[in-house]
């Protein structure tokens, strides 16, 4: 019957149902059907067409209706109600709220700071509009007959002009080099660390806003200089500085100021306060590709020019270097990738992308720990919420409504924590800044992009932390709950247990790593390096400073009672990197031994506390011998270390008096004990100390009784003898510590991270055990009545947790062992991983667990068992 009836066309009908106001839909659809059926008697097709026309004509403002209108008030009410319930619940369960908020706050604060750092590092060089088509040139060179090559951002002055002449892809070439320069502020010498020389094409390639002067001509011609705004204020005050002169260097060369640029963002790979014209250096040569002391940037015609240019560069350079016995290849680095991806540092130190990923991983791990604490607590709590869920379900709540309600609760807790975290992050910012050596401001925390990141983190955490409890709670069966047949499901318990194991594994892992890293750092600090670095001052006196002047300075210094020894040398014993080659006269000329060497004077061995094991120290006469102008008469004296002697095939005593050719001929005068003249990452290598009067540094061994007085005396003498240099000094042990900056930072990060993890894990455990205790209140009461002691109770209550913690220890220790082994193997000299480190970590964790649980145990103990047993 029904199928014989003509049925209106579906598409217009569906369209009608879609737009029509639901209040009117039934009536109008009835009308449409009635009219349609009447018309259909005269032909279905015509009726269909007329039906469609009717539907189209009905589509007008009075009839189109918004469906959601019907529900909107209701859902707002529900939202308000959910919010209220959430707040009441948080207020009711204060301990767990505090634990959750504290935990989340700790985690989110850490994440915020890490995110701030990562965002800053990713933003490097973004303000350069040409960044996509600027290339930094990396040179790789090697010599024929050897496969060894060296790579770096060093290039000679020839590269930029030749490449921009030869290749159409290269629009501009910019050569730069940075140096520290001595300037004079009120006639006092000041060392300015960020002094850079650059070609005049600099301002065509890079974006810097000129406040005064003309960018296109500012660096044309020698002895021109451009300052940043703040430096202009420092040296000249607020007046117009164009045309003023600035005296540069110890010989006070006048430079004409031709421009002032606006202070630029600090997240830049080019760091300079002063920009002098490249021609001022007088180094412009196109003879050789060697003598590579400069950095070259190329502005390419567009960002696609990298590959074609690279293809042409190799054949070109092969032709250029033909017959010279050396090979040079050029590589191009994209300017906007230098900061994160380049292993070569030119001006500002790079941050490796792996480091950022590592930090991101740390942040993620923290979030996971925090979320698992939340999950643990709220699944434990779910028994309390079960009744509510039951009633809600009976009153018609859909599962997804309940789900979003509990997610919403997590979101409320999260928002609360984010607010607290912002305050905490703002307070911790100064410490964080000194920690990562950046300069973040509180306003950076409030920038729109950062707020967006924070919002994303909040949503992510609410979803991650809230979804499991929400699933568990919303999935409960109302009939069973309301009958009172409710227990935590076994899957929830399993999840809780595995989360506890997970958290504690991380904690144990971090404790072990921290202890081992700390051990190694201690070992580095206290290791007998073979030289004495306490109470040793070093100063930079400048290369080739007149030796007579320095000699008098030295003898004046030695007059002070506190100054024990003074030496002029090229490098301090902390870090000696000068590479030389040596050979015995008996060896063929082509056979040489690579060796490190340090030009020193007669005071070096005594000032740095090296131990002579054979022969004797340099004397003043030896120094005179090395100072002779005539190369034929000049005699060098050498002191080797044991390794060098061994390499030459001598026992220490045998070496004394032998001839050795380093630069030119000389005699081995003594042998010292091996000492670490490089980072302990490297094994001790052969080294030769040789007599030379031109070292640029001075080391002064003082007694350490009156350090300020001694330094004041040294400064007073300095002013007399080296007046054109600022008096700057540092202590050798500080220099040594600075060499292990990365390791120290790692140590600090790990300690912090470990502390956070312990804190969070304990909080989680604390919350979890408190809920377990509440559930077992009756059992405890009965046990007490039957005469259980405190220890009995604790062992019963903690047994389960201890088991979990031991599993965690078993998982974490081998992992920590493997990872730390690979870290330690980077050091040539390292501590051993003693078994007791693992023991201690395990004991610490077990006792922390016991402590946490016994807090509840004590409370349960103190309570009168009548209380828990009376009510039923």
């Amino acid at each position, binding site marked *: 019957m029904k199928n014989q009836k003509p049925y209106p066309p579906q598409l217009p009908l569906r369209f009608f149902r879609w737009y029509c106001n639901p209040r009117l839909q039934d*009536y*109008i659809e009835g*009308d449409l059907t009635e009219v349609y059926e009447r018309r259909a008697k005269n032909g279905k097709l015509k009726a269909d067409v007329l039906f469609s026309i009717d539907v189209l004509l009905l589509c*007008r403002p*009075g009839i189109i209706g918004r469906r959601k209108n019907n529900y909107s008030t209701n859902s707002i009410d529900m939202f308000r109600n959910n919010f209220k319930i959430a707040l009441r619940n948080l207020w009711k369960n204060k301990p767990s709220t505090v634990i959750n908020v504290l935990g989340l706050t700790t985690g989110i604060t850490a994440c915020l700071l890490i995110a701030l750092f990562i965002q800053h590092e990713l933003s490097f060089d973004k303000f350069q509009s040409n960044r996509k088509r600027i290339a930094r040139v990396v040179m790789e060179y090697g010599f024929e007959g050897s496969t060894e090559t060296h790579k770096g951002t060093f290039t000679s002055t020839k590269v930029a002009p030749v490449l921009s002449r030869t290749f159409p892809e290269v629009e501009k070439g910019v050569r730069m080099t940075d140096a520290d320069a001595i300037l004079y502020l009120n006639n006092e010498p000041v060392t300015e660390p960020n002094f850079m020389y650059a070609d005049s094409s600099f301002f065509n390639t890079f974006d810097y806003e000129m406040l005064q002067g003309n960018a296109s001509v500012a660096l044309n011609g020698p002895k021109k200089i451009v300052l940043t705004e703040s430096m202009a204020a420092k040296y000249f005050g607020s007046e117009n500085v164009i045309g003023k002169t600035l005296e540069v260097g110890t010989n006070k060369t006048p430079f004409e100021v031709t421009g002032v640029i606006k202070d630029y963002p600090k997240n830049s790979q080019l760091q300079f306060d002063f920009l002098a014209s490249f021609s001022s250096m007088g180094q412009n040569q196109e003879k050789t590709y060697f003598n590579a002391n400069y950095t070259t940037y190329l502005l390419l015609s567009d960002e696609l020019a990298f590959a074609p240019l690279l293809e042409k560069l190799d054949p070109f350079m092969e032709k250029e270097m033909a017959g010279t016995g050396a090979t040079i290849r050029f590589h191009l680095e994209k300017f906007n990738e230098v900061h994160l991806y380049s292993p070569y540092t030119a001006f500002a130190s790079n941050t490796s992308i792996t480091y950022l990923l590592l930090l991101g991983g740390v942040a993620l791990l923290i979030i996971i720990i925090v979320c698992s604490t939340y999950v643990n607590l709220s699944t434990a709590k779910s028994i309390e919420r079960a009744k509510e869920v039951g009633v809600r379900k009976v009153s018609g709540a859909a599962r997804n409504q309940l789900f979003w309600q509990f997610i919403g609760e997590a979101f409320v807790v999260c928002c609360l924590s984010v607010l607290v975290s912002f305050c905490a992050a703002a307070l911790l910012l100064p410490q964080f800044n000194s920690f990562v050596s950046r300069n973040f401001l509180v306003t950076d925390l409030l920038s729109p992009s950062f707020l967006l990141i924070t919002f994303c983190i909040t949503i992510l955490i609410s979803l991650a932390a809230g979804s499991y409890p929400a699933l568990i709670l919303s999935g409960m069966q109302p009939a069973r709950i309301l009958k009172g047949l409710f227990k935590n499901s076994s899957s929830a318990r399993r999840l809780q247990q595995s989360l506890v194991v997970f958290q504690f594994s991380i904690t144990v892992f971090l404790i072990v790593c921290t202890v081992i890293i700390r051990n190694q750092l201690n070992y580095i600090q206290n290791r007998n390096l073979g030289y004495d670095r306490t109470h040793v001052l070093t100063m930079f006196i400048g290369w080739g400073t007149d030796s007579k002047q320095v000699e008098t300075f030295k003898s004046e210094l030695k007059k002070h009672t506190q100054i024990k020894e003074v030496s002029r040398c090229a490098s301090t014993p902390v870090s000696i990197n000068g590479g030389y080659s040596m050979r015995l006269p008996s060896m063929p000329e082509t056979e040489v031994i690579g060796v490190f060497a340090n030009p020193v004077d007669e005071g070096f061995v005594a000032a740095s506390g090296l131990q002579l094991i054979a022969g004797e120290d340099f004397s003043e006469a030896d120094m005179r011998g090395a100072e002779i102008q005539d190369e034929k008469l000049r005699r060098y004296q050498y002191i080797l270390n044991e390794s060098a002697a061994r390499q030459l095939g001598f026992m220490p005593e045998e070496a004394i008096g032998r001839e050795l050719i380093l630069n030119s001929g000389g005699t081995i005068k003594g042998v010292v004990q091996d000492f670490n003249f490089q980072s302990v990452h490297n094994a001790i290598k052969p080294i030769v100390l040789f007599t030379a009067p031109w070292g640029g540094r001075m080391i002064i061994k003082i007694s350490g009784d009156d350090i300020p007085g001694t330094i004041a005396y040294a400064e007073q003498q300095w002013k007399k003898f080296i007046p054109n240099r600022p008096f700057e000094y540092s202590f050798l042990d500080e220099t040594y510590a600075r060499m292990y900056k990365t390791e120290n930072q790692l140590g600090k990060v790990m300690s912090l991270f470990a502390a956070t993890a312990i804190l969070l894990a304990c909080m989680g455990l604390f919350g979890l055990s408190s809920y377990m205790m509440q559930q077992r209140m009756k059992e405890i009461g009965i046990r007490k009545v039957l005469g259980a002691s405190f220890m009995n109770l604790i062992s019963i209550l903690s047994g389960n947790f201890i088991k979990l913690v031991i599993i965690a220890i078993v998982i974490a220790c081998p992992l920590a062992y493997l990872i730390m082994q690979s870290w330690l193997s980077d050091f040539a000299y390292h501590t051993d991983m003693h078994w007791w480190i693992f023991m201690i970590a395990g004991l610490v964790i077990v006792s922390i667990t016991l402590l946490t649980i016994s807090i509840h145990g004590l409370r349960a103990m103190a309570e009168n068992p009548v209380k828990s047993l009376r009510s039923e």
Partner: protein
Amino acid sequence: MKNYQLGEFEEIVLLTVGILNNEAYSVAIKDEIESRLTRTVSMGALHTALLRLEEKGYLKSFSGESTEDRAGRPRRYFEITALGKKAMLYAKETREQLWKAIPKAVLEYQLTIGN
């Protein structure tokens, strides 16, 4: 003087609802207008007019029984409210006043031309 707003089509609909008395629902109104005035009425125009009249308070509606020929959907019947009656009377009176004010000659002339 109270201002009763009533458009031309609205007035026709209101009058037709009066004619149909208790049988006034949209399809019937449509048929009635179409047969009496020989003009086609689109469903959309009719429904909007009915809605507007209801909003103004000249009509009220009630749901009728659902019938087989409407695929089980109810009819929506309309009846005129007291306010609606006043509005109709007001419209009629104003027209009559205006009719009366027209000089006889104008009408006669018109009529003769028309004939």
